[in-house]
């Protein structure tokens, strides 16, 4: 080519490929160009993926994408489970057992769904805490916080309805308990009960409604909200880590942020690699747990006539279960209805109450308190919920033979009564028995015979009165046995 002759770059490359320099690349390149032209990848999609973010976005920012990845895991494994699971009362349990024990790798799929649920609850809590502590909910990201709060509530809704679908004893009674809680709303309580159980009592319609809610209704709402949430993230950009002494001011923030991302880094791949690594780690942990530990075995099948039930929610609701158990009487209606309402209101009102001002947690000590105290409280309550000392042990526990051997005569009769009269359901002696009532290992040293007799006959403080069911001889035997409980070395 001589200088001055017209030659466009396009014709040069076309000439090159026409000469057969790299025909395969040319075809691929042409295919991509075709798609790009029709879809607008380079025009619209790449700019979104590569949008600039502040340089100092750190590892604390990975929880949001990890939550999304957990959600996607749940959707995929949920769809897989739905290929077999039948949501009718007589089939739900059987199909789940089939998935767990007979379907090829069904145990793993169910395991991923189970541990993925826990992962999602943990991750969304961490994400919310991170956003809150960094003040990222402030201007202009208030709607991100609102949609995010709704997503948090919906995630808890998914967690709750998901447990129900197992339709084992825990699930059945969890429905009843949920309906009863809803029933505490004044005036409309009984109507809410009927809505929750889809009828006048739990029946054939109840399970299918929860299935439709868990599989269609809530996920649909979540898809929409996630879409809005992600759109807002792109629109307003990822918030920069807060700096103490730099409060958010509506007049200056946008300008400051634009300057920041003017020398920012593209989200993909410079910032997103942290998200990928963390999400992969979470996924690996979930899959590993699913393979090694596996989903929990199902309880007994749901049966309203099976009274020997000890219903428990899954771990993420154990703290609420414990809270309700430990409430002083009389506060219940206020807490059951009022507490969730209040928590929801605070969540939703937050960006409207504090849209501007300091973002750094170093300047917002109450924000730190507001996260640390509930976190510790929840952890403690979960542990209490696991132990549930307030639950009577049923059937009443029996003392071991070595313990029984110490007693004879009236005291031995008293020991037998202690078991048959259900005392050991609530009271423990030397490690045997329930923990609802006081431990009686040393009660013989604390209370006189008269005091013991009075207490047994009259009850009080949560204990029933046995005066109408025990004969004087039986009472005397019990008192003889209890007076011998002084915590000293074993007798004989």
């Amino acid at each position, binding site marked *: 080519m001589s200088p001055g002759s017209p030659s466009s770059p396009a014709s040069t490359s076309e000439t090159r490929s026409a000469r057969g320099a790299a025909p395969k690349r040319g075809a691929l390149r042409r295919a991509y160009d075709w798609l790009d032209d029709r879809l607008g990848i380079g025009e619209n999609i790449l700019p979104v993926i590569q949008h600039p973010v502040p340089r100092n976005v750190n590892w604390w920012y990975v929880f949001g994408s990890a939550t999304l990845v957990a959600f996607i895991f749940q959707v995929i494994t949920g769809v897989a489970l739905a290929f077999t699971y039948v949501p009718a009362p007589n089939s739900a349990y059987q199909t789940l057992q089939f998935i767990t024990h007979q379907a090829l790798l069904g145990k793993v799929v169910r395991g991923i769904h189970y541990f993925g649920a826990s992962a999602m609850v943990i991750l969304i809590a961490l994400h919310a805490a991170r956003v809150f502590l960094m003040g990222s909910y402030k201007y202009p990201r208030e709607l991100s916080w609102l949609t995010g709060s709704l997503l948090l509530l919906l995630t808890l809704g998914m967690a709750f309805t998901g447990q129900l679908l197992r339709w084992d004893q825990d699930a059945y009674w969890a429905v009843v308990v949920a309906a*009863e809680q809803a029933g505490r709303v004044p005036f409309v309580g009984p109507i809410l009960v009927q809505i929750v159980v889809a009828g006048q009592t739990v029946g054939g319609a109840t399970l299918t409604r929860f299935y439709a809610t868990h599989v269609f209704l809530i996920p649909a709402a979540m898809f929409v909200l996630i879409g809005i949430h992600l759109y807002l993230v792109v629109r307003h950009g990822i918030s920069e880590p807060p700096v103490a002494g730099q409060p958010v001011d509506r007049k200056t923030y946008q300008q400051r942020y634009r300057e920041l991302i003017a020398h920012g880094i593209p989200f993909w791949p410079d910032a997103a690699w942290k998200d990928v690594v963390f999400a992969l780690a979470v996924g690996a942990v979930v899959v590993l747990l699913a393979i090694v530990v596996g989903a929990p075995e199902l309880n007994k099948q749901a049966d309203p006539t099976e009274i020997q039930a000890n219903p428990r929610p899954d771990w993420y609701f154990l703290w609420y279960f414990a809270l309700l158990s430990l409430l002083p009487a009389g506060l219940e209606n206020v807490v059951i209805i009022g507490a969730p309402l209040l928590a929801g209101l605070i969540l939703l009102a937050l960006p409207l109450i504090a849209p501007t001002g300091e973002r750094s947690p170093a300047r917002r000590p109450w924000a730190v308190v507001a996260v640390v105290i509930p976190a510790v409280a929840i952890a403690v309550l979960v542990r209490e919920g696991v132990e549930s000392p307030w639950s009577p042990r049923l059937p009443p526990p029996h003392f071991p033979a070595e313990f029984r051997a110490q007693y004879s005569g009236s005291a031995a009769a008293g020991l037998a009564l202690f078991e048959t009269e259900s005392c050991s359901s609530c009271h423990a002696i030397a490690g045997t028995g329930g923990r609802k009532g006081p431990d009686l290992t040393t009660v013989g040293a604390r209370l006189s015979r008269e005091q013991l007799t009075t207490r047994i006959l009259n009850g009080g403080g949560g204990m029933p009165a046995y005066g109408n069911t025990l004969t004087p001889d039986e009472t005397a035997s019990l008192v003889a046995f209890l007076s011998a409980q002084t915590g000293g070395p074993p007798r004989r």
Partner: protein
Amino acid sequence: MSVGLSGLAGAVVSVPILSYLLSPLLRPEPPRWIDVDDVSKFEIGKTVLRSIVEFSPLPWAGQTAQTAIWVRRTATDEFIVFAVNCTHLGCPVNWQEQAQIFLCPCHGGVYYADGTVAGGPPPRPLFRYQARIQGTTLQVRSLGLQVATP
């Protein structure tokens, strides 16, 4: 106008959908008397577990068509029938024959043999079914899931 028309269309479509979703509320079954068992099967002074089918069950309801009840015969022709649901939050209460008390496993509610609260968080006595003797059969009137609304 297009907004108005769309709104109207939405309103019209939502009528069958909402009615369908709320049908359990809109078409409740009237209460009826249900046979429990022959009265000769119940000992005086004992509380026993029975199950009834309270409402017309859906064909696929399976075991959930059943409702459990505690039946106590206090005299030759006197019965008290309790719902098994604890009045606190609905967990099933366990009858302890020797101690003559109901114990609830969830939060430790305790009731006496007559259903009154002996201790723990329940706000009111156990819910009772209306009971009658028809010929030689004990019958109860269908009740549904009860709740202690304040």
